[in-house]
C-alpha cells in the first residue's frame, strides 16, 4: 500500500489538541461516514442472519430436517452458509476498506502528524 511517500523514522509526536482539532474537520466526518457506511449494515445483516439461523434451529426443526439431496439437509446447508457468509463479509470488508477507507485514513493520519503542508 504505497499511498504516501515514506518518511524515515517514527512520525513526530502529536498533542491531544492536534488530535481533537481534527474531529470536526469535514474530511474526518467523511472518513467516519465511509467506515459506518459499511460496518453498520454489515453488522446488522450478519447478526440478523445468525439469529435467524439460531431461531430456525430452535423452532423450525421440521424445516431444518428437510432433505435436499443424499443425506444433506437444510440445517447442514444453512450451517455451511454461515461459514460462507462469514468468509464473504470478512473478504468484502477488507476490499472495501482497502479501497474506500485506508487511503483517506492515511491521508488524515499524515495531516495530523506532519501538518498540511506536504
Amino acid at each position, binding site marked *: *500500500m504505497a499511498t504516501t511517500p515514506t518518511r524515515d523514522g*517514527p512520525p513526530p*509526536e*502529536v498533542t*491531544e489538541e492536534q*488530535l*481533537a482539532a*481534527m*474531529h*470536526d474537520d469535514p474530511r*474526518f466526518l467523511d*472518513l*467516519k461516514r465511509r*467506515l459506518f457506511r*459499511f*460496518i453498520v449494515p*454489515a*453488522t446488522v445483516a*450478519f*447478526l440478523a442472519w*445468525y*439469529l435467524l*439461523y*439460531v*431461531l430456525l*434451529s*430452535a*423452532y423450525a*426443526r421440521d424445516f*431444518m*430436517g428437510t*432433505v435436499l*439431496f*443424499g*443425506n*444433506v*439437509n437444510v*440445517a*447442514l446447508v444453512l*450451517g455451511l452458509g*454461515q*461459514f460462507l457468509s*462469514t*468468509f464473504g*463479509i*470478512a*473478504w468484502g*470488508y*477488507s476490499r472495501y*476498506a482497502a479501497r474506500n477507507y*485506508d487511503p483517506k*485514513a492515511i491521508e*488524515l*493520519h499524515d495531516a*495530523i*502528524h506532519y501538518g498540511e503542508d506536504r
Partner: protein
Amino acid sequence: MDLLAQAEGTGRTLTMVLFLLTVAVTIVISIWGHRYTRTATDFHSGGRSFSAWQNGFAIASDYMSAASFLGIAGTIALFGYDGFLYSIGFLVAWLVALLLVAEMLRNTGRFTMADVLSFRMRQRPVRTAAAVSTLSVSIFYLLAQMVGAGALIALLLGIKEGETYLGMDAETAKIAGIVLVGLIMTLYVALGGMKGNTWVQIFQAMVLVGGAAVLTLMVLGQYGFNVSDLLGDAATASGQGAAFLEPGLRYGVEVPGDAVQTMWNKLDLVSLGLALVLGTAGLPHVLIRFYTVPDARVARRSINWGIGLIGAFYLMTLVLGFGAAAIVGVEAITAQNPAGNTAAPQLAEVVGGEVGGSTLGAVMLAVIASAAFAAILSTVSGLVIASSSSLAHDLYNSVIRHGKATEREEVGVAKLASIGIGIVAIVLAIFAQNLNVAFLVGLAFAVAASANLPTLLLSLFWKRFNTSGALWGIYGGLVASLALVVFSPVFSGTETSLLGEGVDIAWFPMSNPGLVSIPLGLICAVVGTLMSDESRPDRFATLQVRALTGAGSERAAEH
C-alpha cells in the same frame, strides 16, 4: 472394548515422546523469546512487530482450545448436528471483532482492554473494574481448560481404575496433568512474555491444524470423499437416524408432555447462541492480540487469517465428529469418556489402524493427542498473559502506583503475576478436578458478552458514556452473569449439577445466562451513564480521531 488399551505399549510411549518433543520445542522458543523481551511493550505486546499471518496463527491458537477441538468433535460424535451449532457461533463471532472492535482497539489502546475503557474516564475505578472482569473471565476459562487437561492426560495414557503407569494411578495422573500444564504455561509467559508466547502459539497452531487436517483427509478417504455417505453412516451408527443430522438432540431439547421445560430449553439455546456470538470480541486474551501488530490494517488482515484458519478447523471438526460417530461408534466413545472428549483421539487410532496397521494407528493417536495438548497449552498461556498484563499494567501501575512505575518494575510485576496466576490456577483446578466444570467456558463467554463487549462498544461509539456508566456496565454484567449461573440448573438441583441433586437453589431455569445478562449489562451501562453528569467531549474527540485515523497510536518497537 477399550480401543486405547489395544496399542497400549507403543501408543503410550509414542504419545509421551511426541508430547515431550513438542513441549521441548516450545520451551526452546520461550527461552529464545526471553532474550528479546526487555521493555513493557515486548512483554505485553510482543514489540508490536508481528505480521498479519503470524498474528493470525496466534489468534487461531489462542482461540482453538480443548473445548473447541475435543469438545466440539465429541459433541458432534454423540449428539450429531448440535455440536456444529457451537462452532458456528464461535466463528461468526469474529465478525464482531473484525468490524467493530479490533482496529479501533489497536489504534486507541496500549497493552490491555482497560486502556480503551479508561481512555476518557477516571483511571483508577475503571481500570480496577476492567481488571476484575479480565481476571474473572481468565480464571473461569483457565479452570475449565486445566481440569480438562488433567482428565485428558489420564485418558490418553489409558490409565484405568486400579491400574498404574509410571507409578501413577488415574487420580495421580490427573493431578500430574494439571500441575504439568500449569507449570508449562507459566514458564511460557514468565520466560518469553508475549513475544515468546506468540511464536509458541504459531507453532502450536501448525501442530493442531496439521494434525487435524491429516486425520480429516484419512476419514474422508475412507468414504471416497463422499460427505453424504459419511453423514449417512454416522446417522445409522448413532441409532438416531435422520434426527442425528438435525438440531435438537443436545440443545433446545423438546421434552414430550412438558411444554414449559421445552420452552426454557429452546430459549436456553438462543441464550447460548447470543453469548457465543457476542462473547469472543470481549475475551481479554483475544483483545490483547490486536496490540501485537504494527497498525490497524495489519490487525484487520490478521483477523482474516484467523477467520480462515478457525473456519477451516471447524469444518474439519465436523468431519471428525461425524467420522467418530460412524467409525468408532457412540458406545465405544462413551465407554472411554461419557462427555465424548476422547472421540477425536479414538478416531485417530481406529482410522490410522484401518489405513496403515496398528503402528500407524498408534502414530495417529500420538499426533492427535499432541494436537490436543497444543490446543490446551496455547489457550491457557494466552489467558495467563492477559491476566498478568492486566494485573501489572492496570492494577499495579495505574491503580496502586498512579502510573508512576517504571517499565522494568511493570515487567517484573507482570512476570511475578504470571507465576502467581499459575499457582492459583493449579490449586483451584486440583480442587475442582472431579467437578463438572464444562459450564465455565460458557460462563467466560457470558461474562465477556455481558460485561466487556457493551462497555467496550459504548466507549468507542457513544459520546455521552462516562465513568459511572463503565463501572455500572462492567459490574452489572459480571454480577448478573455470575448470579444467574449460581441460581441455574448447572449449579444445583439436578444430577449433573456442580453441587449435585441434594442442594436446590435453581430458580433460574436456563443454563446460559446470556439472554438476560447481556441486555442487563447494556441497560446498566446506559442507566449508570445517565445518572452521572460527567462528560468529556474533548477526550471523546481525541479517542475517535485516534481510533479512525491511527494518528497518535502506539508504534512498533524498533529492534
